[in-house]
């Protein structure tokens, strides 16, 4: 049933010493979603994914995989295959090794979904990293996994390829649960329903992407008015919730405004301008994305283990 956890971890710890590893990770991955896992380099993402995929053992804690016999597949960030196999042969071998019945048509369809039809009968030895990543995805799709774990699936792709692969990943939630680790936060924001932020081996946030992005709501704006910026700076500086208001150099009608909180600025700036009869032309948030929330979360002390 969609929404119920397909993978749950309780106090999952794998300690490699010197701070490396994952610690007390409580994770709940809802079935039928695309679940993002983000964190800085060395945060423990690959360790966590490997434990979830059964490639590494947990030092302590529990991992519960509720797949009713379904398969958990992991696509590494740099997939590698026998160089003497063609792309189509890799896909067929993938299914057969997993004990999944496969026809040449199934393999061709999987390759078509990742845009590798033209390379189907070429040996993969000289494939670029991006092509290997697509091939890894095709080889996983043909196995019809219940949980598909993707480690940086779009990191080697060109912009067009990235858009295509992300669209494919987004469409997969109808067939399986996807766990997506990426440092490309825009990608995570675009395709994931839920996200966990891992910092120094600990989960510091877990919840809907919309919520974490909301944490990154701007509390600073560029406000363009009809009139002079100096007048607006004086008006806004008088407000108690404004922490900073300055004109923008070389832009006579533009003001940079910082507030103590997003909601204060979002309502307070237009209200103040209306009250004083200053026409508002535009108001653009400063750093309005997951990245700012991520930076905010990862810059705090992760060792307190605060999670949502």
């Amino acid at each position, binding site marked *: 049933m969609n929404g119920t956890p397909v993978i749950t971890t309780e106090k999952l710890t794998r300690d490699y010493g010197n701070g490396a590893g994952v610690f007390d990770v409580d994770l709940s991955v809802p079935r039928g979603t695309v679940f993002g896992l983000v964190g800085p380099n060395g945060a423990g993402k690959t360790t966590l994914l*490997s434990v979830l*995929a*059964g*490639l*590494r*053992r947990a030092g302590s804690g529990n991992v519960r995989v509720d797949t009713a016999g379904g398969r*958990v*597949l*992991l696509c*590494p960030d*740099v*997939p*590698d*295959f*026998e160089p*003497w*196999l063609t792309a189509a042969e890799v896909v067929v*071998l*993938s299914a*057969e*090794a*997993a*004990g999944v019945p496969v026809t040449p048509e199934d393999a061709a369809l999987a390759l078509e979904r990742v845009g590798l039809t033209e390379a189907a009968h070429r040996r993969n030895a000289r494939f670029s990293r991006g092509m*290997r990543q697509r091939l*890894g995805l095709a*080889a996983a799709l043909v*196995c019809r996994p219940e949980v598909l774990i993707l480690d940086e699936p779009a990191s080697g792709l060109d912009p067009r390829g990235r858009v295509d692969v992300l669209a494919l990943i987004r469409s997969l939630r109808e067939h399986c649960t996807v766990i997506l680790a990426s440092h490309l936060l825009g990608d995570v924001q675009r395709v994931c329903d839920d996200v966990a932020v891992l910092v120094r081996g600990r989960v510091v946030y877990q919840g809907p992407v919309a919520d974490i992005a909301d944490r990154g709501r701007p509390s600073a704006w560029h406000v363009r008015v009809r009139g002079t910026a100096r007048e607006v700076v004086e008006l806004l500086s008088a407000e108690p919730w404004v922490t900073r208001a300055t004109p923008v150099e070389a832009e006579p009608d533009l003001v940079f405004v910082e507030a103590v909180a997003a909601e204060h600025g979002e309502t307070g700036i237009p209200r103040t301008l209306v009250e004083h009869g200053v026409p508002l032309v535009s108001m653009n948030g400063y750093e309005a994305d997951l990245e700012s929330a991520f930076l905010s979360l990862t810059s705090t002390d992760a060792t307190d283990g605060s999670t949502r």
Partner: protein
Amino acid sequence: MNTALYRNEIRRMTRTHTLAGLMAFFVFFGAASPVLVFLLPDLLAAMEGVEGVQTGMADLMPEATPVAALGSYVENAQILGVLFVLLVAAGALALDGSVGRSTFYRVRVPGPAALVLPRFAVPAMAAVAAYTAGAVAAWATTLLLIGELPLGATLAGALFTGLFLVFAVAVTALVAGRAGGLLPTVGFSVAALVLLVLLGQLPVVGEWSPTTLFAAQAALPDGAPVTDFLPAAVSTLVGTAALLALAVRGFGAREV
């Protein structure tokens, strides 16, 4: 049994030309060794008088016999042949040298046995087939140049020697499960077999040592009874099974 992984290993043997290389290697030594035994006295006689070559060497050479010709095949192919087989086996078994490739297989197969057994069985069979082809080539060349050899005993000798090659592949499997990469696997496998040869020199181990099996190739056509090599064959078979069980365990315990 998942036959796809066995077919994959057969494809590795053919696509990488490994099987052809093994066959060519052993058949070359099989065909060339009796020729060398046959021509050596004449070569030495022809070289008499050349500066640095001692006179009378040709007279000191033993007579070229069919058994000596077959023994020469074993002597010539033994060291390089085992090294070649170890390289081939390590090429298949050292899959943890590449994390991406290892992950591809490990997340799909039901357990470590499915990972190890095809990678053991196919190179082992290829090694036995190539060695036997070399023995047949040696038998045929000997027949043409020197004299008759019993084919049945020659093949029985090849079978005993092939048992050692199977054992060597099992050693490689065990090492690969611990060492991971190709070069460490080859290096430690060679070291393990050298140690085994040294142990085989001990009188108490002698007839039970797998290395004793190499002597069967020339001894059986010379009339030695098969029972002379049964202790070594038994210990080699038991050792191979034990090594494989440990290899499966090692691959299972290893983390990517």
